[in-house]
């Protein structure tokens, strides 16, 4: 059977192998280059395999930039943002999906309209507001300005709508208030949805570039995407050190991705086809 399958699509398989190799090539280059010596890098023609496998470039990264600080900033900011955003979104989505209240449709339209406005439009006044509030170079400034909940609320809302009302009514008969219904009925029944939305939110915040670039000046407050740029200099970037840093920034994400491939794909298909 398997032999039969393979012989059916030899060209497809071959093409996909080539295409996959091209997609992976930059990662392979990064992996190998992270170990190269400066002599390897400036060799002509370029050396593909490093002449030795030493970790000097990694040590160099920590010497040149506060890499661990950048990493910790990124993790802290993205995690807090994700938790807050999902919590706010889930409560709002529950109210939209299962509760009846005045102005509901108007508020929903208001929330939806926020999706039309690109970041670059709001970022100019947001920066002024943050500056007035003294939030430049603070975690609060980094975190709060990017709690864009509209999208995750929409996503969760469509899941919550599929939860049967009977479940809620049953809990109500048992004497639960709506907040308890939310905690005990809605949340436990939508673990996949919460997971998908959280993954989506986390990746968005982890990658965030423009806002952290504007709101931080202090090196200590920089997040990883911005901090990595300190290794690029006008006069002769040390590529091998850059690769060691990129490697450390990329590998954890890739490892998580390989273990959670299904969830990642789901977060794309669900969020993608929803908007």
């Amino acid at each position: 059977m398997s032999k039969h399958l393979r012989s059916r699509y030899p060209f497809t398989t071959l093409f996909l192998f080539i295409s996959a190799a091209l997609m992976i090539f930059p990662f392979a280059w990064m992996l190998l280059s992270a170990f190269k010596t400066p002599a390897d890098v400036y060799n002509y023609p370029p050396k593909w395999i490093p002449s030795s496998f030493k970790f000097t470039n990694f040590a160099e990264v920590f010497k040149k930039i506060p890499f661990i600080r950048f990493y910790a900033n990124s993790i802290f900011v993205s995690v807090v943002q994700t938790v807050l955003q999902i919590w706010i979104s889930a409560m709002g989505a529950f109210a939209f999906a299962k509760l009846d209240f005045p102005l509901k449709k108007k508020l929903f339209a208001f929330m939806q309209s926020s999706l039309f406005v690109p970041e670059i439009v709001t970022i100019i006044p947001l920066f002024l507001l943050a500056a007035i509030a003294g939030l430049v170079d603070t975690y609060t400034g980094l975190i709060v300005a990017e709690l864009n909940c509209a999208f995750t609320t929409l996503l969760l809302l469509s899941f919550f709508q599929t939860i049967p009302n009977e479940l809620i009514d049953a809990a109500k008969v048992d004497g639960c208030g709506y907040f308890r219904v939310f905690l005990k009925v809605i949340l436990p029944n939508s673990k996949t949805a919460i997971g998908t939305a959280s993954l989506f939110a986390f990746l968005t915040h982890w990658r965030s570039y423009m806002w952290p670039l504007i709101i931080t000046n202090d090196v200590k407050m920089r997040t990883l995407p911005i901090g990595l740029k300190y290794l690029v200099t006008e006069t002769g970037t040390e590529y091998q050190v850059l690769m060691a840093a990129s490697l450390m920034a990329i590998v954890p994400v890739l490892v998580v991705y390989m273990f959670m491939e299904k969830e990642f794909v789901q977060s794309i298909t669900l969020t993608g086809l929803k908007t």
Partner: protein
Amino acid sequence: MAMKKKEATKVYSLKKEQQRAAAVMMTPLLITLILLFLLPVLLVLIMSFTNWSMTTTTRSYVGFRNFLFVLNDGRFWKAFGNTLFYTGIKLVADTGLALFIAVLLDKKIHFRRFFRIAHFAPVVVPITASSLIWLWFYDPGIGPLNQILSWLGLPSMQWLYSEKTALLSVILFSVWKGLGYNVILFLAGLQSIPESYLEAARIDGASERQVFRKVKLPLLAPVTSFIIMMGIINCFKVFTEVDVMTPNHGPLESTLLMVSYIYDQSFTRGKMGRGAAAAIILFLIIFVFTMLQRRLGRKEVSFD
């Protein structure tokens, strides 16, 4: 009678309770929306009609002067042209390739999981980190791309360092980075086509090519239009990769895009009024495409 009255008060109190619960649960969401959306949008509108600047403290009403400045600014049109170029090339390359790869991945082949992971991997890694790898790729002196060109007997290129190829180099990176996203969407679309449709076509004697053109492609239309429209909108928002790869907008500003222009006006030059006006123009462009996309096919969320 008494029964009915009791029922009525129960419904009434249930309604009250729902409203109270909704008020509590909606408050945080509404606060974020007011603070991060409504207020900034109002402010940006006001700013676009003033000579707001980071360097001076005087702020006075200037009418449409910012808009006129932007619309008469050669750099703005350069940025607009570059963005259109970027969008056109990226869209054709991205959509075509993604559809092709998705069709191949839809077949029952070996190593499917590996292929899927490989194509999607560039999507999940942080853009900054991956664009730094490509920075080296594009190095004219010691970059591997020129080495490969010389193996193939082709002349070496200046990549990011020539006016002609800088934007194309950024596009090439963007296609590499974003391809997997569209592959996944196309693949999901293909897999949602019921097998029975395909069987029916095959029984009627359709070749695989005909099955693709007459059955799969039409059924993929909603996904395709979604990918194209979102692609356009996202291309108009591109900033990170051009800023990391060409911090000074490339040779002769050949990689200056719309968002880079707005960022440059507002934050580098501190002319926030002009930046705000340009941002509003960009918003209007994106708004038109968003409306088109919504018109073309999307289910409204309904409360019934």
